């Protein structure tokens, strides 16, 4: 494979392919299976290229034009881990795409293995199929260097919270988090995507397999600098009576594609999504979700609240699919946007695909500006305009981060929200 064969390659595509060639023999891997998977992934990428708006799934997010060039790899050490958000939690970190082995005892006892080690000894699994529009799987499989594999035995209880930290200060990395959660386990995982203001390029894929009766909270908090590009895929399979709550707070990145694929595979499984997009600057943030109800009595509720200022652009594509077997499905999806400047924009595309006849499904979307009368009311009590605006924005998104079992989680997120409001409103 040489670059000159295909004239239509963009600069970013060329750089990605050149990266792959340059990394040959340097990425951790052992055995033919992994080598084949990586090669198949890069072949698929070479064939399809970066997705453009002509692909339905990428209609609002044209990567061919969004991604001008790619932050190169760097061998610099790349910084340090941050202090954990919550006390009594265990940080499993990655810096510049390399796992940081915890030195403390609690960390060693965790059911966690660096994914790079699994790649190196041939025990890792990588996908083999690459749909034409699944650029995240293509790039991540071809280039993944490390990550954390988590394996929670059945009945694990939640007193230890795991904080996955993906620290990326400039440069490029591709990481992966395979997570197996045994039946009736109760776990809370925080995924922090952080880094400084240097330009960076990241792909990050989480694959959760959750067994019967487990209760899982997964909280993605993204505060990486405003020149980073991140491709993130969150995939989960939910067994019988599993409850998964996914929170996503985006308050960073120049370009983000957050894909969410949830399969409600077992009867009585429930998926809850709460997403907050705090969008500013000249940025592009895309959340694309597919929830598949595949069994009877499954339920899901997705609530997305967006605040967009400056020239920020946001996208939410939400698809709920209800299979023929999934009778008594109850699904609802709502997306509310607050637009704070003339040049900011949020596009919403909700879709339902229902093959069962006895279901309750709904979706809704609203776009609004700050209510002038509410603003006047607050100001009439002496609250300065900027502070009054911030109060109204906070009132709009704040309720999505209430009701955590661990009260401090809500407090931490409120502080994050206040910091964003202070800088941007």
């Amino acid at each position, binding site marked *: 494979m040489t670059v000159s064969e295909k004239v239509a390659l963009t600069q970013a595509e060329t750089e990605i392919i050149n990266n792959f060639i340059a990394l040959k023999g340097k990425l951790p891997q052992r055995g033919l299976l992994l080598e084949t998977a990586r090669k198949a992934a890069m072949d698929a990428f070479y064939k399809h290229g970066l997705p453009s708006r002509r692909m339905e799934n990428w209609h609002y997010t044209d990567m061919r034009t969004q991604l001008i060039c790619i932050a190169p790899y760097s061998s610099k050490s790349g910084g340090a881990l941050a202090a954990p958000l919550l006390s009594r939690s265990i940080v499993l970190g990655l810096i510049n795409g390399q796992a940081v082995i915890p030195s403390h005892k609690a960390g060693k006892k965790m059911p966690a293995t660096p994914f790079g080690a699994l790649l190196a000894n041939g025990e890792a699994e990588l996908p083999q199929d690459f749909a034409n529009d699944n650029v995240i799987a293509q790039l991540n499989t071809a280039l993944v260097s490390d990550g954390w594999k988590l394996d929670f035995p059945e009945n694990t209880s939640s007193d230890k919270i795991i904080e996955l930290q993906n620290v990326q200060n400039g440069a490029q990395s591709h990481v992966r988090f395979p997570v197996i959660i045994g039946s009736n386990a109760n776990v809370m995982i925080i995924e922090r995507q952080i880094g400084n203001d240097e330009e960076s390029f990241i792909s990050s894929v989480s694959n959760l397999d959750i067994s019967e009766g487990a209760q899982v909270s997964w909280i993605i908090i993204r505060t990486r600098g405003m020149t980073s590009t991140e491709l993130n895929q969150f995939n989960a399979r939910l067994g019988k009576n599993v409850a998964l709550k996914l929170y996503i707070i985006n308050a960073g990145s120049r370009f983000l594609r957050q894909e969410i694929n949830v399969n409600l595979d077992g009867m009585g499984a429930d998926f809850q999504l709460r997403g907050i997009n705090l969008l500013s600057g000249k940025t592009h943030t895309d959340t694309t979700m597919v929830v598949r109800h595949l069994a009877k009595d499954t339920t899901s509720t997705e609530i997305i609240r967006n605040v967009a200022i400056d020239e920020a652009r946001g996208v939410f594509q939400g698809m709920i699919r209800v299979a023929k077997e999934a009778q008594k499905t109850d699904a609802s999806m709502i997306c509310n946007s607050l637009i704070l400047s003339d040049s900011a924009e949020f596009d919403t595309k909700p879709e339902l695909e229902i093959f069962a006849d006895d279901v309750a499904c709904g979706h809704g979307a609203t776009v609004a500006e700050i209510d*002038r009368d509410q603003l006047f*009311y*607050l100001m*009439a009590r002496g609250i300065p305009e900027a502070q009054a605006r911030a109060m*109204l924005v906070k009132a709009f998104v704040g309720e999505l981060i209430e009701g955590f079992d661990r009260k401090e989680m809500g407090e931490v997120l409120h502080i994050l929200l206040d910091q964003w409001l202070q800088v941007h409103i």
Partner: protein
Amino acid sequence: MLEIKNLYARIGETEIIRGLDLKIEDGEVAAVMGPNGSGKSTLSYILAGSKNYKITKGDILYNGQSILGINAAERAVLGIFLAFQYPMEIPGVAMMEFLKVGMNAQRKARKEPALNVSEFLKHVKAMAARLEMDMSMLKRPLNVGFSGGEKKRAEILQMVLLNPKFCVLDETDSGLDVDALKTVAEGVNALRASDRSFLVITHYQRLLDYIVPDTVHVLYKGRIIKSGDKSLASYLEQNGYTDIIGEPI
């Protein structure tokens, strides 16, 4: 305290205030009455600094200074308070938090130290009790699900806590039963002082039985068309507006 001089104001293309003159002295309680649609609420919003209206002519002087160039928050800091006819519901902002933020914002603007939280709570509870308000209201989102009467009491609570110098009460009596009216009027009367003035907007004489005004003004089609003392209110109660405005309404 306040002087409105030949004021003209419009919303969009509609002129609502048309040559309004009104002067209120320190310590005075002035009542403004008038049929529905006269411009009473418009006047109250303009005084409080709403940006919905365009002032095309005239001036508003507060203690001798024009306030047309300053916004609602700055006016509040100067001591101007409006008890809204229709208080806004704001889900997601707790009543207590709102009270605290408002009071602290004003204190900060006046370079006073922030409130001591426990003193603040004590003070709020005492005032709420005096207005016979249910404490649970304070924990709820601002005005959300409050009855008409509860909203009006909450407005008066805010007034008492913010301790303003010039208070505009826009139809505070509507939605209140007689007992509530008495309680609220007592709250207002307790604030009467030689350095504090009130503009009490009402549709009925009823409220003025409890908050006895020094002067009464009839507002019609955006102008004050008649002024007098409290006997003017009784006259209007008995005879209606027709012969004063010189046309049937």
